[in-house]
């Protein structure tokens, strides 16, 4: 099947990623090998194999290649948000503004991960001076190159899976794309095989993840039995024509929530996440906490809002999700309080943030929200997913810097960071404050929009003449309590976020040596910090929200 010109234009970001994958395979293998034409003495260069060219076999080439491809894909997705017209391609893909917005987030997160990985997984360049034994160094250079190719191929695969997942208009295709991204990310988690925990983390993440996926696929098969089709439109039709909840459909959706719950690391499916985050290297952990989580939420929204949603008759999942949300955020925050490993702490904080977003999602299922409020809740969730890429991934980038010099697994590695590098420490502090939701940073704005959505949803329910707080609380809809839960949990989370700030500024550093130079990484951290502020206050935040509004309109 060949794409038409319009279709390939609509799918340009994905095609760029595919091109990146193909190039990543071909480029390192280019060489000066020649083939002798039969019966002649003419040797024709075929550019494949033989002695590799110095430029193409540079171990840093795959990293640069993947980062470039992802960045281009990100820009293309971003520019297509407003022009996407909902074109349907072969019945499984629908190019909407919303899916383009999401693929922009995914590719942005992965581009940052790719750049950070260039610094994190060091590559040694083959230089003639090193040639003690020429064959040896060529060999090792080649191995190094291969390893880089593997890593960046996997990152591109993840990007392709996620991006297509956002585009899918069919549940089966959605699951396939989700699995493509998941499988690649399992390998990425275990990629750091030199360390013992790396392998363990990968195995654990893989086993738990595949069980969750299997459960989800089983749920999908139940949905297929019930509806006879997995296309979102026909699923929505079946759902709205269903008088009361069909157990088959209910169980199907419930089981799918298990698979997506694992992706967003919602309790109680989050148990593998802290081990995976702390076992793998920081850029990959950051990718799991941002892009992978966003993928889970998009899948969840596609199922819960897309066809089993508040406008389609029976809503069965609101209360269940609300309870799950409260458990998730509380568990995450309590566990993060006692974490001594910064990556583990960020993992639990990511669990807590999943809880906040689940709470907003639950409000969508309460059946109380009118369509404006529904849009607002969805905007809040997606806005949070978008700005998480800045400050969550940013925090992991700082940890990457510390990992490069060999630390990163103990909170004491952060001691006295301000004395060693004031700008990096300040950035880290801004990320922590934003995670905690301190105004005027973007973390506050997104959390505030979620709380606002929750309160608007339940605004008609409290008795206005109640003469006391307790009677008023009794008269208000229980979904209002979700807003209070978010506020209380945010207060709780302040302790561990501020602790990071304190140890950075006021403990004695373990060593006085400056942090590794890694200019590109530093630039990323700095830009993330600036954007964390700009997307919280001022015209930039307004711009992003306006863009998001067009995106949500086409959900």
């Amino acid at each position, binding site marked *: 099947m060949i794409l038409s010109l319009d279709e390939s234009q609509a799918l340009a970001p994905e095609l760029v990623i595919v091109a990146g994958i193909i190039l990543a395979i071909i480029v390192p293998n280019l060489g000066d090998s020649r083939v002798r034409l039969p019966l002649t003495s003419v040797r024709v260069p075929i550019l494949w194999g033989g002695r590799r060219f110095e430029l193409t076999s540079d171990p840093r080439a795959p990293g640069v290649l993947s980062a470039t491809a992802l960045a281009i894909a990100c820009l293309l997705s971003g520019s297509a948000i407003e022009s996407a017209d909902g074109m349907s391609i072969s019945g499984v893909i629908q190019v909407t503004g919303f899916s383009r917005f999401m693929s922009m987030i995914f590719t942005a997160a992965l581009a940052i991960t790719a750049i950070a990985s260039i610094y994190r997984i060091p590559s040694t360049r083959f230089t003639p001076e090193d040639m003690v034994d020429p064959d040896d160094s060529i060999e090792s250079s080649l191995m190094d190159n291969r390893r880089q190719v593997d890593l960046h191929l996997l990152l591109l695969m993840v990007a392709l899976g996620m991006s297509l997942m956002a585009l899918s208009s069919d549940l089966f295709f959605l699951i396939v794309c989700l699995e493509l991204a998941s499988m690649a990310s399992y390998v990425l988690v275990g990629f750091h095989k030199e360390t013992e925990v790396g392998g363990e983390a990968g195995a654990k993440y893989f086993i738990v993840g595949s069980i969750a996926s299997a459960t989800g696929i089983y749920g999908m098969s139940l949905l297929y039995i019930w509806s006879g089709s997995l296309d979102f439109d026909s699923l929505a039709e079946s759902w709205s024509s269903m008088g009361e909840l069909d157990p088959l459909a209910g169980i199907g959706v419930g089981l799918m929530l298990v698979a997506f719950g694992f992706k967003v690391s919602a309790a109680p499916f989050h148990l593998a996440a802290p081990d995976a985050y702390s076992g793998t290297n920081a850029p990959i952990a950051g990718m799991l906490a941002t892009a992978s989580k966003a993928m889970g939420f998009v899948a969840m929204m596609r199922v819960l809002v897309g066809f089993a949603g508040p406008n389609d008759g029976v809503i069965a999942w609101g209360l269940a999700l609300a309870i799950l949300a409260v458990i998730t955020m509380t568990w995450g925050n309590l566990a993060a309080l006692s974490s001594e490993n910064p990556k583990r702490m960020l993992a639990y904080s990511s669990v807590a943030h999943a809880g906040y977003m689940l709470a907003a999602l639950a409000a969508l299922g309460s059946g109380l929200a009118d369509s404006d409020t529904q849009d*607002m809740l969805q*905007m809040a969730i997606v806005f949070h997913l978008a700005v998480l890429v800045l400050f969550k991934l940013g925090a992991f980038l700082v940890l990457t810097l510390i990992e490069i010099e060999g630390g990163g697994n103990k909170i004491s590695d952060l001691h006295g960071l301000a004395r060693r590098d*004031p*700008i990096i420490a300040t950035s880290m502090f801004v990320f922590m404050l934003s995670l905690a939701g*301190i*105004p*005027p940073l973007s973390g506050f*704005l997104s959390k*505030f*929009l979620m*709380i*606002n959505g929750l*309160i*608007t949803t339940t*605004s008609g329910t*409290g*008795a*206005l*003449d*109640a*003469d*006391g*707080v*307790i*009677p*008023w609380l009794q008269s208000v809809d229980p979904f209002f309590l979700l807003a209070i839960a978010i*506020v209380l949990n945010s*207060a709780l989370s*302040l302790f561990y976020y501020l602790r990071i700030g*304190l140890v950075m*500024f*006021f403990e004695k550093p373990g060593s006085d040596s400056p942090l590794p130079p890694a200019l590109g990484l530093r630039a990323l951290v700095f830009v993330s910090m600036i954007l964390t502020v700009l997307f*919280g*206050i*001022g*015209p930039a*935040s*307004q711009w992003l*929200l306006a863009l998001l509004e067009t995106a949500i309109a086409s959900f």
Partner: protein
Amino acid sequence: MTFTDPLSIITLVPLLSGLALLILPNILPQHISQRMQSSVRNVAIGLSTAIFALTTLIFLGSIGQIDWLSIGMGSFVLETEDPVWLIESIGVTWHLGADALSFPMIWLTTLLIPISMLVQWDVERSHRFHALLLVMEGALVGVFVSLDLFVFYVFWELTLVPMFFLIMIWGGEDRKYASMKFFIYTFTASVLMLVGILVMYFNTADSMFSGSLTGHHFNLVEMTEQARIGGLIASEGLRHLVWLLLLIGFATKMPSVPVHTWLPDAHVQAPTAGSMLLAGVMLKMGAYGFLRVAVAIFPESTLTFVPLLVFLGMASLVYGAVVCLGQTNLKRMVAYSSVSHMGLIFLGIATMQPIGFAGALFMMFAHGIISPLLFAVAGSFKHHYHTLEIGSMRGIAHHSPFLAGHMMLGWMGSLGLPLLAGFVAEVAIMIAFWMTFGWWVLLPAITLIFTALYYLTSMQKIIFESNDPHQGILPDTLHGEDPRDVTWHENVGMFILGALTILFGIMPFIFWDMMSVWSTEFIETYLIHAMNALEAMP
């Protein structure tokens, strides 16, 4: 032009230039940044003096032709007119304005910053110290000028950061404990306050300031107006809850007993300039916010909780005074006297009389001049005698006549000697107290005698007793050296503060008139209605 009005300038210029001065030495090449470091303090003091001159010009009416006595309640001087959006989606605007409640505080802030820089002119790593003071100035002025609760809250929290660093880096031996305690107390309290602000936010009606997504706004002027017309929050219980949340935030900052314990620690450990700003301006943020937000928007709750206010005020007044009697540490004594005086502010508000409000306002201002003088004196005592123990030293009048003179003037001002600034405020509050509570006025009046008592005994001990150099007692910490008098820059700073103490004692009407007009109108506009409603109830 949006950010070029005078109030924006006195907020943003110190804030941004302070931040720039903090960041630049980290970025610029080594040799430039080293040359820059020595001139940072000159830039800082020049800039803050210019800001002070600008503020004074605003006061004198040269900018904007202001008549301070006829502003009218609910409108502000130099108020921002069109909404200048900061976050349009949730309704946050850059909305500034000043009135008789905030302007004396703004003037005081801009005055105290250059003076505290001058008093602590020679300090280690001065390029960071003086830049932090500039940041502090921007944040403090921002609290007083912003009429948008979101911006108000951001500035409120922002004041914590420079003060925290000032104590943590330039403080005394126990600085770590003190700064942590300071941060945790005030931060927790202000987070509770934020919850109260959010509840208010979600009850605001649609207006031109409303956010495009949420339909609510943070604008304080609109909120107050809405509260005056129809009540901001319908449920009475919720109103009381919000009022209490706000009270916790503001009372901790003031500070009032029982949430005052961070203050003595912070003061004793803080560097002199930090103490001066802490006592001079930061404590007043609590009283300012209480009047501006809690009293203006929830007058019924305020009237309902008047007994609580009287209790808090009396407790702070008496407790502060009694603790002072037993203090041997000079700075700790001054810190507790601040607690005591902040109690008087609560009492003044609790009277619900125009003269009581005006007295509280004037107390905020007078204490803002006198207590920095006291802390400057205590700091310079520590600097030259290397101790803060009251009993370790006798007869400094002989060794350091200037220091002794400033010390006496400050203490006299603080105990409320007639013709000094503190007296006006105390008398006004006492009169109002008598008008409302009758002979109960004896209770605070007798406590004021305690204030005189502890000041006079310490004065007797430190300044006068046995000034014979052969028999006088010098502290061991001097190690036999001869004590010195204050340095010239300390002297200049203290002279200015002392002169202002006398000036505002003789001519209180400079600020008193506008404060008294403001108080009368405030009570007429916001409180009379609530009082009548309460009286009408069975």
